[in-house]
């Protein structure tokens, strides 16, 4: 310690000078105080030239889907030979936010989960003007998912209708006819009957992952035309619809009718292969399992519409889904719009995506187009699925998709809410919370921690 007062004074003076300099420097640092509200200039306009030219950078998640999109670029260039597409496989969830915040190396188009679109709206182009001609032909649920404050911030990509996948062979072997299942009460009855015939089985899948569990819950809600929050961001959890859904899920758990496992994890697969898990109410993309993962029971599974929550109700809801967004800081957003326009609304484009390709010789059957003219039940883009006994999955999915109600917005804090609602749902599956407690606890947590702090 300094013992000389003069030294100490000098030390303090230096300290003060340093801090003062630093403080003034922060003032001319990165700007956080400015910025206005959205204006008409935030709306993207289509390019005017006939043969626009330039380079665009497109981000997609790495994997098979990347290869599919990659294959379509050649077709795109037949129509627009002067646009060069740099197609990059990127871990979007990890990188997008920082890229948008720093505004460096920003791509022109990005593949994004619907649940994340509204969170990034401030960084994205409003596509209301360019999408106007197509709006009436796009599945209403997708439009709602991409709408924030009256603007549309994503080009809807795929519709993921919820379906009931069931092990037809196992059910038949105990004399249960799946086509009689029309409501969730019917499903419960069928499950009980199956369990009676095969003791030790837990026929219905209950999701153990927090995020997917909440996503599945939203699928059920979507059937009832509701979602976690309305278009204005007001919480709708405390409603008869959610109460009904949660009570049903709680019943499955309480009566021991559910197999609790992580989606397509090792235990999940094992239970399905053993014939202990025979009902899987899930998005269409579950079709991946019988095709790639279920060695023993592959071929036994079929898909049908979801049961309804009441007689005559909608027999499908949306679970997940993605869209393409265009960041404002992209250099050639207008050209990126042309790329997605081709991909989604040009027959050459969407046929190439969903139709047979080198990656998917039978076609891409884990989703259907959100663009209704492309999702015509009588004009399948992908072939019948051998692993589903050559079932015409296209027909089932597109007809189900038509029934998905509108009015289901996705709030910008949806992902963050999985910490509260997703967790509470898991605790309910654990038997530690009642449906009412879930609604109350998750509701107040979401209100305090997320909504009030927007």
């Amino acid at each position, binding site marked *: 310690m300094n013992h000389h007062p003069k030294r100490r004074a000098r030390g303090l003076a230096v300290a003060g000078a340093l801090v003062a300099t630093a403080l003034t*420097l922060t003032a001319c640092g990165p700007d956080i*105080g400015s*910025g206005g509200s959205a204006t008409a200039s935030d709306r993207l306009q289509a390019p005017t030239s006939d043969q626009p030219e330039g380079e665009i950078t497109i981000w997609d998640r790495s994997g098979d889907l990347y290869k599919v999109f990659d294959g379509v670029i050649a077709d795109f260039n037949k129509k627009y030979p002067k646009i060069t597409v740099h197609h990059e496989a990127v871990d979007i969830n990890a990188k997008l*936010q920082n890229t*948008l*915040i720093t505004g460096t190396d920003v791509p022109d188009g990005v593949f994004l989960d619907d649940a994340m679109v509204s969170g990034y709206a*401030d960084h994205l182009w409003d596509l209301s003007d360019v999408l106007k001609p197509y709006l009436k032909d796009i599945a209403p649920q997708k439009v709602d998912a991409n709408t924030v404050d009256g603007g549309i911030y994503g080009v809807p990509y795929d519709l993921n209708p919820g379906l009931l996948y069931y092990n037809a062979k196992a059910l038949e072997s105990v004399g249960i006819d799946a086509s009689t299942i029309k409501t969730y009460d019917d499903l419960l009855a069928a499950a009980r009957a199956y369990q009676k015939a095969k003791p030790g089985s837990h026929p219905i899948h209950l999701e153990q992952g927090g995020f997917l569990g909440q996503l599945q819950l939203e699928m059920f809600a979507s059937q009832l035309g509701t979602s976690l929050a309305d278009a204005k961001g007001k919480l709708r959890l405390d409603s008869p619809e959610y109460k009904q859904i949660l009570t049903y899920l709680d019943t499955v758990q309480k009566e021991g009718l559910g197999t609790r496992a992580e989606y397509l994890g090792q235990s999940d697969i094992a239970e399905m292969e053993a014939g202990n898990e025979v009902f899987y109410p899930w998005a269409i993309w579950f079709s991946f399992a019988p095709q790639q993962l279920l060695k023993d029971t592959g071929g036994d599974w079929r898909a049908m519409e979801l049961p309804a929550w009441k007689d005559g109700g909608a027999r499908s809801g949306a679970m997940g889904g993605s869209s393409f967004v265009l960041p404002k800081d992209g250099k050639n957003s207008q050209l990126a719009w042309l790329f997605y326009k081709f991909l989604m609304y040009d027959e050459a484009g969407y046929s190439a995506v969903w139709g047979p390709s080198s990656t998917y010789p039978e076609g891409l059957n884990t989703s259907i187009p959100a663009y209704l003219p492309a999702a015509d039940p009588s004009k399948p883009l992908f072939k019948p699925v051998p692993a589903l006994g050559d079932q015409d999955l296209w027909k089932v999915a597109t007809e189900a998709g038509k029934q998905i109600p509108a009015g289901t917005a996705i709030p910008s804090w949806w*992902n*963050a809410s999985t910490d509260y609602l997703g967790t509470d749902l898991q605790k309910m599956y654990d038997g530690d919370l009642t449906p009412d407690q879930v609604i109350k606890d998750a509701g107040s947590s979401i209100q305090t921690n997320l909504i009030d*702090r927007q």
Partner: protein
Amino acid sequence: MTTTVLPSAARPRARRGGTRMRRRIAPYLFVLPFVAIFLAFSVYPLIFTARLSFTNWHGAGAAEWVGWDNYTYLLGSPAFWSSLGNSAVLWLLIVPIQIVLAVIVAVLLDSAKLRLRGMYRVAFIVPFVTPLVAVAQIWVVLFDQDHGAVNALLGLVGIPDVGWLTTSAWAKPTLALLFLWKTTGFIVIILLSGLQSIDRSMYEAADLDGASPIRQLWSITVPLLRRTIMFAVVLQTLAVFQMFAEPFVVTQGGPYNSTTTAGYYLYNHITRADLGTGAANSFLLVILVMILSLFFVRMLRAKD
């Protein structure tokens, strides 16, 4: 080295003055590169964080001033406190066990044959130099509830499956085990170095008196290793408190937020683009760190 010193009168005046001047300036010049980098990349961001912590910036557009709002939210948020609690519990699970284990291993290694010692040293350091990401995947597979090797081994002696990474009760110990596995080798080596400075004759004297090895360990080794042990404790406390990568890769903070450490909780704010709250959280951590470091520095100094 010369042994003659010129009488002062014979030295040219100018040179003596120049030397003294150079001597005064030298430390500033030496310290300058470090201080420049320190100011630019440590101090400045810290001050910027302070400024950010009073706003509700979400990464784009305007940032509104919200005063102490973020701080009151955090201090009143059960999630914040439990993240601190998680870090504290992890410390309790890791540091005491690690130090005891490392001391024992180091002492045993010290007595091993010279050739084998090198082999053991390398073996123990392997986890430390393996990329964390690979280790995390390994852990996930080994500790899988239904198909992992650990439960398989336990099953051999009749113990039922344990949900190592899926129950809140076991997730922290499993993560602690990962951290222990990864870093103990490094601590053993630090202690080995300390052991080398202990005078052999002490042990010989104790042997002559017939003292048991455990007695010797407790009465001779540990007290003399005290400074090295303190150093290791400080090092590992820093590491545990900063722990972010492990929960990030292995458990993503779960299950039920049981492995959300202080660092991970902060990270959550950042990924949710809740940057104002994140900044406030950072600053609270900074204050906590300052208190802890003052405590440790005082303890280290007291030992002199």
